[in-house]
């Protein structure tokens, strides 16, 4: 089922800010630094302000919660981005706290979707959130020394603050950096650490929380309650994602996701890179759809630079983004069925189509998966006539036929229906509260699609429908993905018909771009949801702060609610429908 477009409400962000300042005199003031937007809220009032925004003004969706370290000043900033799911511009709230004793009230009572994000800020910055029910480290393990994203925390293989390193040219000798480390490894230990006398945490903190959920009055039947770990290595091919579940027989009583097994310190490396050097790193975030990641980052930095790509480049960007969406959704459908037990046959059909799309990426961008195709102000390379004909043949002839085949094969299958209908239900209010986005949100009945609500690039000139369904179960998520593939094919047919001739880059690509000071939040509708990039610049060639708002991480916030009460076998199906990609969950 599809619907027509969402209109943005005429009120702009400034009117909301003025309204807030009038409502809470003395506690809120506008941000004054040039290039920065938003309002600064005082620490004691943040929950009151959030409650007012949610209940009186209708801002029901918290999309991003992150922190910026202002070393050497004694300040850590907390940034909150909010919007309405009925369509509104994004408003930004800021909170300043100190580096010495950062204690801040948690906003979880107002927005439950802040769960994982606050744990991440505690883990990487050391900001303590009062009122958070379960403040543990998210991406690193209990017992790790230090809070890594602070500017004065140096890694073991640290060389210099910013790239390019001086040791590479003009006098550079190729060495393995870990050979300089006394342990020949990427490790460092605090002073007077005794390895022989050390007892590790061994995940006791996770198990303690699960054990506290055992219902009272069952002490004599303790044998029925088991804690089972699903992962990090398990046959469902979603990557190293672990769920610790408390089971009573086969019923799930409590479930805690444990992540961080693919934490590759993307954000710390991002602060060291120059702006253009970050582009290949964004490929590796959501590695199934690398063109979307490039798109989001290019949009965020182009907002700061204030440049706009030429028309042909915009059409090429949309073409690549939609081809990526088809490839990613086909793979998601294939792997959902893999989780259900149809061992690999539907995946083979889906992977055939994905291989043909990857062929196009290989001949245009140079690599099947890590495309590195976008630049600030355009794209790297133009598409040749032969490749354009291939895309045309794919989109007009082969893909519609094959997607109809997959539809015929799977949608009316009785086993799929019996196992997927009514499983993992999230109502619309719950989905909004947990900050779900993408197909997860749309399958629950909320027709919010960034391409319609806040159009970027040329999406406002293209005709397509927003695909949404009502029930919010696994079957609806599968149907939404299938519908979205069809809408992407429709968009591609229009792009092919109306592609203009012209240049593909505004200005010349420089490798040492200097971005003016300011902040920007650029977001795209990725195949998994809202992929946002929050970048802060202080006028230099390297970012001051670089944060990724990962859709898969936010979509996992509702995992516990979806799985509790069902059977353990359904937990695997529900994870398959959430469609996690660990590269962006853990960054």
């Amino acid at each position, binding site marked *: 089922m599809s619907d027509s477009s969402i209109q943005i409400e005429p009120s702009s962000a400034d009117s909301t800010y003025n309204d807030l300042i009038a409502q809470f005199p003395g506690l809120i003031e506008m941000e004054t630094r040039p290039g920065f937007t938003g309002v600064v809220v005082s620490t004691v009032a943040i929950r009151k302000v959030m409650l007012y925004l949610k209940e009186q003004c209708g801002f029901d969706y918290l999309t991003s919660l992150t922190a910026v370290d202002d070393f050497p000043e004694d300040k850590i900033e907390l940034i909150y981005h909010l919007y309405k799911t009925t369509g509104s511009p994004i408003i930004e709230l800021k909170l300043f706290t100190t580096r010495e004793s950062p204690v801040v009230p948690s906003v979880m009572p107002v927005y439950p979707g802040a769960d994982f994000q606050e744990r991440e800020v505690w883990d990487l910055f050391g900001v303590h959130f009062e009122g958070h029910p379960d403040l543990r480290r998210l991406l*690193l393990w209990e*017992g*790790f*020394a230090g809070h*890594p994203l602070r500017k004065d925390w*140096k*890694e*073991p293989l*640290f*060389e210099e603050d910013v790239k390019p390193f001086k040791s590479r040219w003009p006098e550079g000798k190729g060495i*393995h*950096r*870990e050979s*300089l*480390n*006394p*342990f*020949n*490894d*990427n*490790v*460092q*230990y*605090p*002073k*007077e*650490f*005794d*390895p*022989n006398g*050390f007892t590790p*945490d061994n995940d006791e903190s996770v198990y303690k929380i699960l054990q506290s959920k055992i219902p009272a009055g069952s002490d004599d039947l303790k044998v029925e309650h088991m804690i089972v770990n699903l992962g*990090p*290595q*398990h*046959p469902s*091919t979603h*990557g*190293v994602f672990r769920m610790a579940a408390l089971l009573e027989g086969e019923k799930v009583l409590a479930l805690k996701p444990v992540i961080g*097994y*693919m*934490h*590759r*310190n993307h954000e*710390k*490396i991002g602060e060291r890179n120059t702006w253009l050097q970050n582009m*290949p790193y964004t490929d*590796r975030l959501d*590695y*199934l759809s690398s063109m979307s990641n490039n798109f989001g980052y290019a949009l965020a930095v182009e907002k700061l630079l204030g440049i706009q790509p030429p028309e042909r480049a915009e059409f090429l960007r949309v073409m690549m983004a939609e081809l990526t969406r088809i490839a990613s959704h086909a793979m998601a459908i294939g792997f959902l069925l893999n989780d259900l037990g149809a061992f*690999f046959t539907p*995946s*083979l059909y889906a*992977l*055939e189509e994905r*291989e043909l799309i990857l062929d196009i990426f290989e001949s245009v961008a140079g690599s*099947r*998966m*890590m495309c590195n195709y976008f630049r600030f102000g355009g794209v790297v390379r133009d598409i040749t006539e032969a490749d354009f004909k291939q895309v045309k043949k794919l989109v007009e002839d082969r893909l519609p036929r094959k997607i109809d085949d997959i539809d015929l094969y799977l949608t009316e299958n009785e086993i799929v229906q019996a196992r997927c209908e009514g499983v993992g239900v999230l109502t619309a209010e719950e989905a909004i509260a947990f900050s779900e986005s993408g197909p997860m949100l749309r399958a629950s009945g909320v027709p919010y699609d960034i391409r319609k609500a806040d159009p970027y690039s040329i999406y406002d000139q293209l005709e397509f429908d927003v695909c949404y369904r009502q029930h919010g179960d696994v079957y609806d998520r599968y149907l939404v993905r299938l519908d979205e593939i069809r809408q992407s094919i429709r968009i591609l047919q229009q792009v092919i018909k109306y592609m203009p001739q012209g240049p593909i880059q505004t200005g010349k690509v420089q490798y040492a771009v200097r971005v003016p000071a300011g902040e920007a939040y650029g977001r795209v509708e990725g195949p998994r949801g809202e992929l946002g990039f929050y970048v802060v610049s202080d006028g230099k060639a390297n970012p001051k702060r670089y944060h990724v708002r990962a859709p898969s991480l936010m979509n996992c916030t509702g995992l516990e609610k979806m799985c509790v009460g069902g059977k353990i076998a359904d937990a695997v199906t529900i994870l398959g429908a959430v469609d996690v990609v*660990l590269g962006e969950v853990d960054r």
Partner: protein
Amino acid sequence: MDEKQDLNNSGYEIPEELRHQVTITTLEKIYNWGRSNSMWPMMFGLACCAIEMICTAASRYDFSRFGMEVMRPSPRQADVMIVAGTVTKKMLPQIVRLYNQMSLPKYVVAMGACASGGGPFKEGYSVVPGIDTYIPVDVYITGCPPTPQSLINGLNALQKKVMNEKMSESGWYAKEPAKEVPIPVLGPDVFDPRKSELIFAETHKQAETGDDIGEEGEPK
């Protein structure tokens, strides 16, 4: 380039008409030929390289042509562990534990730049610079990610290595059981129990001299 393995190696002359039916070879050659053509990989994908591994198992670059289609999730039933993707410190104890649980003969293929030597993320705080710091590796395949053809090339190299192994040097006919790799512990940073003495010496040396060298021991 001769990719086919020649079984007939003992030098006896076989008449022309029987060449397709009869082969005279050594026990070791047949043993290795059977082993190398039926290696079962363990389903162990970590990150982006795992997707290329799945594409290798899919219909276009089928690796069941080499006998590897049976991807077992259990380490007890697997022969080769293809470490595909970045090895992070949090995941490291699990990888070593799985390696210990595999039964001999076992092989490790480091697929991708990250598993071979840390990869593009090596400069961070939570990435292990190559899995060979902790477990022995047989074949390294670099690339980011290596294409399925590259992976098949690497697996063929592993098959060649297995064909050249000697039964007398194999570890699984020895009297003692295989030595297990000690599992790393997640402390303030991950540490290998084999290096405990060295770690103790380093951390207490800095405390005694009071030197401001920095914890990694290299001059700034």
